[in-house]
């Protein structure tokens, strides 16, 4: 009788029900958990959050999609990237066509496989909420905080300006080298003077320069590389 009811119901499908059925049969967008991460951290295996059911309401095994490409906010001028771990949540986005790795593609190409919105076309974007991440950037209305349980590094090839560039942030090594140069300059500089209207000119080293030391030592330098 249950099947009869389904058959009768099947004869009176609304457009909405048909649309729902088509969307539900395709991998357009989904949510899942990472079950393993590849060695290069670019591919993940993802367990889908909901187990599928058949037309007879039989619950199938969990859906596992292997080798899903991870995507991060990225362009040539900026990239935000982080290591993902097993158990992290990801949004799965189904692409219209199958592209094995978007990151490797530089120009359009012909399709090798005619798959649309299938498990193979899914891409993973780490997305969710974690109460205690290892690194956290919080942006509030009046302050921005960066907290991390890991080593924090700032790297720049051309220097780092802080406090709106009115006070430059300078590397410790650079500061020490500058002080060393200054010290050498003090120790070796000469003064020209006239002793008497007649006679020869002489140079001398200032007596107090010999006691000067570099106030910036290696042990106390700022680790700001």
């Amino acid at each position: 009788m249950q099947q009869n009811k389904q058959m009768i119901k099947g004869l009176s499908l609304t457009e909405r029900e048909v649309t729902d059925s088509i969307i539900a049969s395709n991998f357009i967008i989904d949510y899942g958990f990472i079950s393993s991460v590849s060695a290069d951290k670019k591919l993940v295996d993802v367990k889908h959050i909901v187990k599928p059911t058949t037309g007879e309401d039989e619950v199938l095994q969990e859906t596992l999609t292997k080798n899903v490409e991870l995507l991060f906010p990225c362009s040539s001028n900026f990239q935000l990237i982080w290591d993902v771990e097993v158990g992290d949540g990801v949004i799965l986005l189904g692409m219209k066509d199958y592209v094995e790795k978007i990151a490797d593609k530089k120009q359009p190409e012909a399709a090798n496989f005619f798959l649309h919105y299938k498990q193979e076309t899914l891409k993973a974007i780490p997305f969710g909420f974690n109460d205690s991440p290892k690194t956290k950037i919080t942006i509030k209305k009046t302050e921005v905080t960066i907290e991390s349980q890991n080593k924090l590094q700032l790297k720049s090839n051309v220097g780092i300006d802080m406090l709106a560039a009115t006070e430059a942030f300078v590397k410790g090594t650079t500061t020490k080298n500058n002080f060393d140069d200054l010290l050498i300059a003090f120790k070796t500089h000469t003064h020209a003077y006239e002793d008497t209207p007649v006679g020869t000119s002489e140079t001398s080293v200032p007596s107090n320069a010999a006691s000067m030391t570099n106030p910036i030592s290696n042990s106390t330098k700022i680790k700001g590389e």
Partner: protein
Amino acid sequence: MDVELFDKIINIDLIANDGKVSQIICPNEDIKPNISISGTFSMGSLVTNLSLKITNLYLNRPMSDYSKDVNSDLTGYIQITAGYRNTLVTTIFGECFNSFQDKPSPDGDATFEVMTGQFQDWISQTMNGNYSKTMLLSSVLKEVAIALNMNLKIAPSITQTIGLDLNFNGYAKDFCYKLKQCYPNLIIRPDGKDLIVFEDTTGTNIWHTIKYFSNAKKDAGTFTINTPWNPSIRPGDNIQVDPLFFKASFGAQVVNTDKFLCISEDFSFATNDDVNEMTLTLTPIE
């Protein structure tokens, strides 16, 4: 088909939905039952519909016991062994989804509508798998056949790897459809207890030679021929015809090959009547 076209037999195993089997056998001697079958084998990924008619059939239980019960999963199966005695016979296995007596009289026909292939399994069996792109396509298809409770019969020309990491969780028949999307030349055809797989450009590599025609015509790129039924031919099989016949009919320039691929097969066959014909649609290969 180099066989003697007489002593046509059709033996029937009716398997009721409780598993009990009734047999109708064409005996070597005496009176043969009046049985006819007709249907179409097509090349698509679909089960094929056949019609089996038995005149003056008496069963000691309701006919509905031999067909699918719509209120349950109970299913009746039919096995048909048909052809020419001691020479060329084939076995067709399928699920009976409808049975009825069309003229309730001693000369009335009992009709069984049969889906070749294990239709219930075809529509209900599920599978779950992740396949690496270096895996052979034949190995993946073997798992599909196991899920469908079928035997895989794959053409030897299919030797490639799958080429992409395939994931699937759902009905096995849907996975067949997905494989067809990935490999557009691939034909996956359930036939009885077999899952037949081949490429539409080369066929199953099972060759048949046809020597006798009753008619042949050419439509665009395909040829249609009428011959007595060869029970072993199925869509996807390779057909070799007498080149002299075709060249005499169509001219040598039109037919520059004698090797063809069978795309579809309509057939009618009966034990007692004169009915014995098949219409094959062929495309040239090579």
